[in-house]
């Protein structure tokens, strides 16, 4: 197990830092390719969401310079980045991946969106060949663990989504949401969800603006709303009381002067901006204006933190599941370690050889030392020749995804009982089989 993980998340780094590390969807494949070309890295993938940017790699010797990669890739000085980074290896990295996929490390514990995001990141990395054997195993397991956590605990069931927190905040500003207008800028899933919640609480109408006008029309139709051309955004935005913005723009699209215009046209009636974009869409300068209330993704986290305590108990249960799954995964991975199988195969054949020599010795009577040497050499030679191909196959298969299958076939063919770690692995594998059947 030579997994390494490095990254920042909503707990370790402020939004300002995460903004600089955010990797857009279009740049993700190239980043994965760059990673696999980096010295010491065999496989790698990147998870980049608004709350985290993480690089997970399977390395040659467990000591790849992932920090160095981040510095180079993002053109950041170590002192700017390093204080916010966390770096995990082997078992800890596996645990972290499981926790992320199961939404235990999320800003809103139990929210379902993160699993989809991890799956997308995995698919992207797999498509460019950056994920093959080990990471493939890790993430396949992570998805299974996430499913288990979701079905066996109530962590996800009472999830306080960002969307419902946004509704609560909107109510703190506007009281009743009846008759309020909502503007969605950037047609993303998250904004759609937030808009749906707001509409369910009585908001009157919805406007949608997107760089691709067709997408805006598509989303507007869902809500019976009105699509606005992106170039008309500033002219129409003041019609909305609540603006949900999540564009992929590299810079703020709402600046102080826009806020001042909106307020003047609205006769200073307050506006609520829910900025779920990273990098942020609303400039901090605009957020300072009287009458403009802006909550970015970090602020929403603060707002939900009070709800997190309610689910602590369920989260503890989920953590226990994760812990046992990490052990299982570790055991399972060690089945990929072919050395115990080779040793066991050698032992097995040696036992047969010795037994056969003893049997012949009994039949032929006492042999001369020369005869002894000749029989020894003959039998050993045969064994070595027979073993050569299986051992070579096992060694080469260890680097491939089908290693488990090959190891399994060899064990079955020779009826091998592997001791120690492998023994645990076998029982784990058996458990898996039972699990699959049920």
């Amino acid at each position, binding site marked *: 197990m030579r997994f390494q993980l490095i990254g920042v998340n909503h707990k370790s780094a402020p939004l300002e830092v995460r903004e600089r590390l955010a990797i857009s969807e279009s740049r993700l494949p190239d980043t994965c390719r760059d990673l696999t070309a980096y010295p010491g890295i065999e496989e790698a993938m990147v998870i980049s969401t608004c709350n985290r940017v993480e690089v997970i790699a399977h390395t040659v010797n467990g000591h790849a310079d992932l920090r160095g990669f981040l510095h180079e890739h993002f053109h950041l000085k170590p002192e700017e980045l390093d204080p916010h980074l966390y770096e995990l290896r082997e078992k800890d990295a596996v645990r972290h991946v499981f926790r992320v996929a199961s939404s235990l490390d999320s800003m809103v514990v139990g929210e379902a969106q993160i699993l989809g995001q991890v799956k997308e990141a995995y698919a992207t990395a797999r498509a460019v060949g950056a994920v093959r054997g080990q990471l493939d195993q890790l993430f396949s397991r992570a998805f299974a663990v996430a499913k288990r956590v979701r079905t066996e605990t109530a962590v996800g069931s009472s999830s306080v989504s960002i969307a419902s927190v946004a509704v609560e905040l909107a109510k703190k500003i506007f009281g009743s949401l009846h008759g309020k207008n909502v503007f969605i800028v950037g047609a993303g899933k998250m904004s759609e969800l937030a808009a749906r919640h707001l509409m369910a609480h009585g908001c009157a109408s919805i406007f949608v603006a997107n760089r691709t006008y067709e997408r805006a029309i598509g989303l507007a139709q869902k809500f019976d709303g009105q699509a606005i051309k992106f170039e008309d955004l500033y002219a129409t935005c003041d019609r909305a009381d609540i603006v949900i913005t999540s564009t992929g723009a590299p810079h703020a699209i709402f600046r102080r002067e826009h806020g001042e215009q909106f307020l003047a046209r609205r006769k*200073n009636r307050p506006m609520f901006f829910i900025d779920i974009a990273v990098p942020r869409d609303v400039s901090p300068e605009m957020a300072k204006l009287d*009458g403009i209330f802006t909550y970015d993704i970090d602020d929403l986290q603060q*707002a939900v933190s009070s709800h997190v305590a309610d689910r602590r108990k369920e989260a503890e249960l989920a953590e226990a599941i994760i812990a046992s799954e990490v052990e299982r995964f570790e055991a399972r991975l060690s089945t990929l370690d072919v050395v115990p199988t080779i040793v066991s195969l050698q032992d097995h054949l040696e036992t047969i050889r010795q037994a056969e020599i003893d049997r012949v010795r009994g039949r032929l009577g006492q042999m001369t030392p020369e005869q002894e040497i000749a029989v020894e050499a003959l039998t050993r030679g045969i064994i070595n020749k027979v073993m050569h191909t299986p051992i070579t196959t096992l060694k080469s298969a260890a680097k491939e995804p089908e290693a488990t299958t090959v190891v399994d076939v060899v064990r079955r063919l020779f009826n091998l009982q592997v001791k120690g770690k492998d023994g645990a692995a076998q029982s784990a594998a058996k458990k898996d089989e039972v699990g699959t059947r049920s």
Partner: protein
Amino acid sequence: MSLLWLRFALGCYFIGLVYAFVALSRTSDLFARIALHAASLGMVFHFVSLVEVFLSGQFVWASVHNGESLLAFISMTFFMVIYAIYKTTSPGVVVFPVVFFLTFVAAVDQQPVLLTALVQRRGWLIAHIILIFTGYAALVLSFGASLLYLLQERRLKAKKPSSLTSFLPPLETIDQIGYRSLLLGFPFMTLGLLTGSVVALTTYGRVNFLDPKILLSVLMWAVYMIMVFTRWNSGWRGRRAAILASFAFVAALAAWAANYFSTMHRFAS
């Protein structure tokens, strides 16, 4: 006897006062309910006290202490009306201390002082007092609402998790309370000043605009008008509205204090 009832009322209002201070630091629904009931009971005692004054046969409405008592009662009435509409006790944070202070001063001792030379136009005088006090009460409430608005705005801007659980009603509700009080108070204040002028004209034959009471009252009315205008025209809220409201409130206090310096509007001893 009326003083005794007033002192009972004061005791009840004291609970409201404690609530006002506690509410600023933490939320307690139970305490809010207790304060509300205590305030209601206080109003009953207060009402009895005012009725006794009225029935005493003497015309003592225009005494300083009875005036203060009446103003406190009208303020409480406003508070209760707001509670009935918006189901919030948070304006109490401002209203309770003001009411307690006014009632406290009025309940200290009996001070049967009368406005001088007011033998004619008694009806106008009563109208003047009630109208102007209603205007004052509305102003107090509007001032309170603008402070609460500022407080809630700060809380929401500070983005603390507590902003979701604060005792304050939604920003727009506070805004409506403030704006409606302002709109309601303005005509009362205007009519109050007009009736006052009529009383002055009939009593003295002229209105001396250099008299401190008149000057400050006109200033207060002007600020009041600016508040209504800026709100109506540009929707001034938050900090700017709070500054104006504070200014109007200070002007109102000064106008009240001017009773002691005015030659025309003076309580005789």
